[in-house]
């Protein structure tokens, strides 16, 4: 169903074709490893069946600098690679913040921080309510995005009710202004989530965490990157 012949190096080149926003010159691809591993090895998604109700859902909550996301969508056949070259132009469906109504394969419109995780909570409930409880929701947030209180509403609630089909990836590049003393994962584990902290560049570790069983609780992967954003 997917183009299996694309390599990580090739998708990285695709990402380089996009300069979505001069404000995010470096950040634009530091999430590429996690998104690549998800789409290459984990998610049950098919560009030929975008509306399949049983598909897994990837929610790019951290919508700033979505180059990595667009590059993976292109590599996996959701969008034409040519779209990457005209990014953020008036007629381009790809902008500096993704619009789900314009981008095939984008599950949510994002860009304002702190919306993806609450949406993911509702989506996870909704999948269970409609008989697709085996479908998983993966929401990618940034460590600075965790500053937004809406995330903490969702973390506390999802842990309390054991929303097991919900998964979060925190792309942690140490960019939160006031940091997270004690580590990002502790904010989740204190609320009964299972958690793994891995190196963003370690694709095997990302894969193991994304596929680790967590039958009675949500799971967070804290993917630590050495990249400095500013």
């Amino acid at each position, binding site marked *: 169903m997917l183009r299996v012949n694309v390599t990580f190096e090739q998708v990285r080149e695709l990402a380089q074709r996009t300069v979505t926003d001069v404000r995010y010159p470096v950040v634009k691809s530091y999430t590429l490893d996690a998104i690549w591993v998800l789409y290459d090895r984990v998610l049950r998604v098919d560009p030929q069946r975008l509306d399949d109700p049983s598909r897994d859902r990837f929610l790019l909550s951290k919508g700033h600098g979505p180059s990595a996301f667009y590059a993976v969508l292109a590599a996996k056949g959701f969008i034409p690679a040519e779209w990457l070259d005209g990014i953020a132009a008036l007629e381009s469906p790809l902008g500096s913040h993704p619009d789900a109504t314009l981008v095939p394969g984008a599950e949510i*419109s994002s860009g304002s921080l702190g919306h993806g995780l*609450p*949406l993911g*909570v509702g989506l996870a409930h*909704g999948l*269970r*309510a409609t008989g697709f409880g085996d479908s998983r929701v993966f929401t990618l947030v940034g460590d600075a995005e965790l500053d937004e209180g809406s995330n903490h509403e*969702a973390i506390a609630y999802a842990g*309390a009710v054991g929303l097991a089909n919900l998964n979060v990836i925190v792309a942690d590049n140490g960019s939160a202004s006031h940091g997270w003393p004690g580590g990002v994962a502790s904010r989740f584990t204190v609320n009964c989530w299972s958690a793994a902290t891995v190196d963003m560049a370690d694709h095997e570790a990302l894969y193991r965490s994304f596929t680790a069983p967590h039958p009675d609780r949500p799971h967070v992967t804290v993917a630590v990157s050495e990249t400095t954003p500013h």
Partner: protein
Amino acid sequence: MRDAWAARTNELLEADPRVAVVLADISADLFREAAAAHPDRVINVGIREQLMVGAAGGLALAGLRPIAHSYAPFLVERAFEQIKLDFEHQGTSGVLVSVGASYDWAEGSFTHFSPRDVALFDTLQRWRVFVPGHAAEVPPLLDRAVRSDEGAYMRLSLRHNENPYAVPDDALLVLREGRRATVVAVGPLLDNVLEATADLDVTVAYTNTPRPLDIEGLRELAADTGDAVVMVEPYLEGTSDWLVSRAFADRPHRLLSIGVGRDELRRYGTAAEHEHLHGLDAEGVRARVRKFLALL
């Protein structure tokens, strides 16, 4: 009204597997059994309104028809960006049902007042606004809101008229005809308007669905009353000015808007007392309409 809404919502939950309810503790006791029976369709997130609206947006993404409910200021004002982005910008919609209205819990004062809510929905695209005037008007309005795939905001109140009215969909219901002005009463203020204008030569029309406002109906009625229009609304005064003004762009008209004042009163007391302070009781409405008609 809240009980009527909860009863009908419980019925809809049983009848329609698409219906879901998201709560933030408020009114959770009215959905305990339903929550036990449908744990993924009746969700109480605790006192977390951003999450409540966001999760409702997520349920809509899964193809469900979510109903989110809380006190009006927390549902609409605290979580307004969630309404804008987690429904509107996603290309989905939902049903939002509030309690508290403009001054229902007067002892609670400003923190629990939400006269600005309808004006906020006017900044979005195509949200319907339902303002029932009686508990019996709630179930049919809720059915309409749930059946539709457009956004709907239902504003429940403890204030109500003595009798319910069957209002035709999206049309003004004419209750009295006169020659000097067309007075439109919204939701629970109808009885006050009827009393205030009992001996005045005016047309009185009622609506519990102020958005979309029945512009064509209003133009027809006003044509017979010298294009003098009075809007009496249980939320922020002047909320509908822009719509009326736009509707009459092609002909001279006069408009009097009566609604909840902009100033923070910093008073407690009862809802009836606040209605009086805002000039929304029969006495206050009557005085302003008489002045508008130059009956001094």
